[in-house]
Structure formats: C-alpha cells, structure tokens
C-alpha cells in the first residue's frame, strides 16, 4: 500500500496537523510500510466472526447524569490553562474568514 504525497497531505488535513515538506516525505514512506505490514490481516478468515470492542463483556453501564459542582478555585485553575480568556470564557479565533 503506497500512499502518494497528495494522500498524505489529505490525511494530515483531516487530522488537523500542519506538516513540513520533510515530514510529508518521511511519514509518507513510513506509513506506507506500516500499511503494507498490516495488510496481512486480510488473509484471516473472519466470516461469521463478531467484532470485539469491549473485552470483559460489560454492556450499557448506565448512571444518572448529575451535574457535579466544582469549587471556585478548581474552576479558576482549569480555566487558567487556556491561552485566551475573556470574562471567564475561553476566547477563540473566528471560524470563517471575513472575505
């Protein structure tokens, strides 16, 4: 499975990663190599086999959805990690360009 540079660029964009030219080249060949290796799974017969996502057999662990209050200091500590605050809210850049 060989990935083209365009494909790597597209994957990086989907994953929201800005990559340098050198990175695009390097990861392209490394990912192609890994994909070739994992391709061997296709040879396993999995007809009538159910996929496994939860290994210990638990199903639908339900609980009440209750709001838990944090004390003021905890809230401040959590918020203080954000790079840009305004009136106790996290400020972000605009989503769309003005043009």
């Amino acid at each position, binding site marked *: 499975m060989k*990935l083209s540079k365009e494909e*790597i660029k597209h*994957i*990086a*964009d*989907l*994953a*929201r*990663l*800005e*990559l340098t030219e050198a*990175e695009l080249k*390097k*990861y392209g060949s*490394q*990912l192609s*190599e*890994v*994909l070739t*290796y*994992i391709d*061997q*799974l*296709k040879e*396993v017969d*999995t007809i009538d*086999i*159910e*996929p*496994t*996502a*939860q*290994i*210990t057999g*638990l199903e639908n*662990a339900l*609980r009440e959805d209750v709001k838990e209050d*944090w004390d003021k200091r*905890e809230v401040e*500590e*959590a918020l203080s*990690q*954000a*790079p*840009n605050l305004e009136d106790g809210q*996290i400020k*972000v*850049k*605009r*989503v*769309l*360009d003005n043009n």
Partner: protein
Amino acid sequence: MELNELTIKEAAEKLAKGEITSIELTKACLARIKETDKKIKACLTVCEREALAEAKEADRLRAKGERGDLLGIPYIAKDNILTKGVKTTAASKILENYIAPFDATIIKKLKEAGAVLLAKSNLDEFAHGASTENSAFGPTHNPWDLSRVPGGSSGGSAAAVAADMCLFALGTDTGGSIRCPASFCGVVGLKPTYGRASRFGLIAMTSSTDVPGPITKTVADAAIVLATIAGHDKNDATTPEAEVPAYGKSLGKSLKGLKIGRPEEYFGQGVEKGVRQTIEKAIAKLEELGAEIVPIRLPHTKYGVPVYYIITPSEVSSNLARFDGIRYGFSSEQVKDLKDVYVKSRGKGFGPEAKRRIMLGTYVLSAGYYDAYYLQAQKVRTKIKEELDYELEKLDAIITPTQPSPAFKIGENSDDPLKMYLEDIFQEGASLAGLPAISVPCGFSSGLPVGLQLIGKRFDEEMIFRIASAYEKMAGWQIKPEI
C-alpha cells in the same frame, strides 16, 4: 542497606515497628533521585516539597494509630497519570506546562492510603512506544547499561524502580507498556485485567486496552499496590462491580497440580538465544516446583501486532483530537483563524510518533477503508481472544518470554517505526484479550535482564501472583544494577 532499597513489605514492617519514619524513607528516595537521575533521566518532575509534606502527614497519622501497607510509602507515577497541582505532561510539548485540576482515581486511592508521591516519570510521548525514546524531553537510560533503552512506554517508572529511586511506581499498559520496561530493567510489572483498575484521569491512548498497574521490586509488592488501586469507579464505566479480592493471600502456596501452557509460537524464530535459554531454565524451575507444563498452540499470535496497529492508531486519532490549542496546552500564536489554531498547535505540539499514529488512525477510519481495516481488526481481535480463552479454560496460566530480546541500544530502532512495533509482539495477545499478565525477572542474557511473562485468566491476577512469587522465591534474582 539504604532505606530507598527496601521493598514495600520490608518498609511497611519497619514503619509499623517504629524503626523508621516516612520522612526518613522519603528523604532517602529523594537523595537517590538527586544522586542518580542525572544519568538515568527517569523523572520529569520531582515534587520534593509536596512529598515531604505528605510524608510528614503519614507519620502524623501513624502516630495517631492509623495503619496500612502503603501508609508513608514513597512512589513515582508515570507522567500520563493526572496529579492535581503537579505537572502532567505525557512527555509531550503540547502539554509541557499542563497542571491537572483533579487527581486520577488511582492517585486519589493511593493518597487515601497515605502513599507519598515523589515524582512523575518519563515515558514515550502519550505512551506511544517501546523505548521511552519518543519522549519530547529526551530518553531515559537503562540502569543496567546507560547506552540502552529502559523499554517503554513506562520506561521512567521501571528505571526508577530498578535504580531504587522509589519503593514502587505506577505505569500504564496498552500493548506492553508496563511489561516491556519491567523486563528490560529487571523489575516486576503487572498489567491487570482490563477494567480492574480505573482509567479515570489517565491521559487516554487506546481506551479499549489501556490499564494502569504497578511496577515493583517483588511480586508481593505488586499484589499490595493492586489491592489499593483496583476496583469499580463510577467515573470509568468499564470497571466492573466485581469484588476486589485480598490479593497476595495465596502467595507461598504450592504450585503442585497447576497447569501452565507453553505456546510454541512464543518460542520460535526471532527469540534471542540467551532469552530462550533463560526462559527454558525458568520453566524447568516451575516444573521442579510442581507445576505441569502443557505445550499449546496460539496460531493467531502473529496477527497481534497488525491488529494492535490498526485499533491503537484509530483510538489514538480520536483520543488525541482533544489537544487542539484551545482550552489548555500549547497554542500556536501565529494564526489567522480557528482551523489555523488547530493545525499549527498540533503540528508543532506533537512529536513524530504521535503524528504517525494520528495519521494512521485517521486513514484507516476514513470513508471507504473502515471495513477493510478497523472492522477486520476487531474481528481478528475476537479470534485472538477466543483462542486464548479456549486454552486458558484448561490451564491456570500461560508462560512466555516478555520480550524476544533484551534492551536494545538507544537510537537503534528509532527511525524504523515498524521494527519498533514488532517489539510488542509477545504482549499484544494479553492486551487485546484484556487478560492480566505479569513480567518477572528470570535471569540475564549478555548481562542484561530478561523477563518471563505469565498470562492469567480474566480477573485472576491472584493466580499469576502465586506462580510468579513461587518462582521469584526459588530463583532468588536479587541482583541490583551498578549505577
């Protein structure tokens, strides 16, 4: 003997008798960190002030009559486990200055038990790796040979225990990240059953196989730590309500009549000669102890790595989506719009292996590829699980080498991700099947520690403790590295 060299059990006895204090014990560990960590680089953050305060408090509680195996015992936690007020970086630039506003459940439990947190240990960034070379803050060195890796991803924790910087450490294991470094550093490492200990407050990597566990100097100590960190947590829906047994109760019981499976696939090509000889000797010892060794076949073993490297990157790509430069962590400043914040913060904040896994996961989950990769991997996962369960039905445990070879040189595999992934080959089975597995030192190959792995039935950690402890007692590997 210095106090930092004690096991938990030995220290607990001395504390109970009033022969030593937690302050003395903690100071001995902090001094050892100062003395050796310049060379080993196991710790990312040392919280000396907090540790001394916790030790003082433990001594005060003991004077008031409180007791407990971990009361006043100093430990180190892997730096992907959240600790309130003490930095948690996941060894990533993107979390370089992150301070969690709450404790992980296992940290909370240890705090309640009176254990003393000394430091946060190095790891492969976000626990992606088998060598601790993927840390954004530089590699950890193996105490047995400073030019070699300590294994990974919990390399800092294992190296710290091997170097006696602490009495025990916490690691996390997703596909071998406790067992591999335990084996490379010559210490005990337990990956509990999936769900046995809470994942709440662990920086998530692969939510369907992540599990925290102890790295210790003895098997008995691993049982003590597990007894404290195990159990149901309302904040982690994958922890069952199953009762936590009194771990360690069966230690010392005879192995007569126990059946241990020896899978042919784990002893074939690719296993270094010295490792094979060491494991064979250990198997002979187990037979002397009365266990019956049963040859078994696990033909799907070879698919463990490919299954793992589909499931893991898939879950990594979604779990690491939260690091976006908005609420916490590194945020790029040269940006024009919101998407720019994401791509630039993530592009600069993540290291190479995190990026590779995010991209691999993004690719295999993308439209048109899901069935061929992710779904097929989950189906093969079922086959791996069924095969192991089928054999374990008739057995008490399975024995394998933990790693096919001893610790490799720093830099040897670092530019070949596939070669690094193959380091996990003997560990994926237990991880994908959610089974408990322990790595115990069983000798040396060319002067480097070798570990044997015992895989048990789901939620039957006690059986692998019993077998591992009997072996440990008989074999008596008590050699320490010269640092």
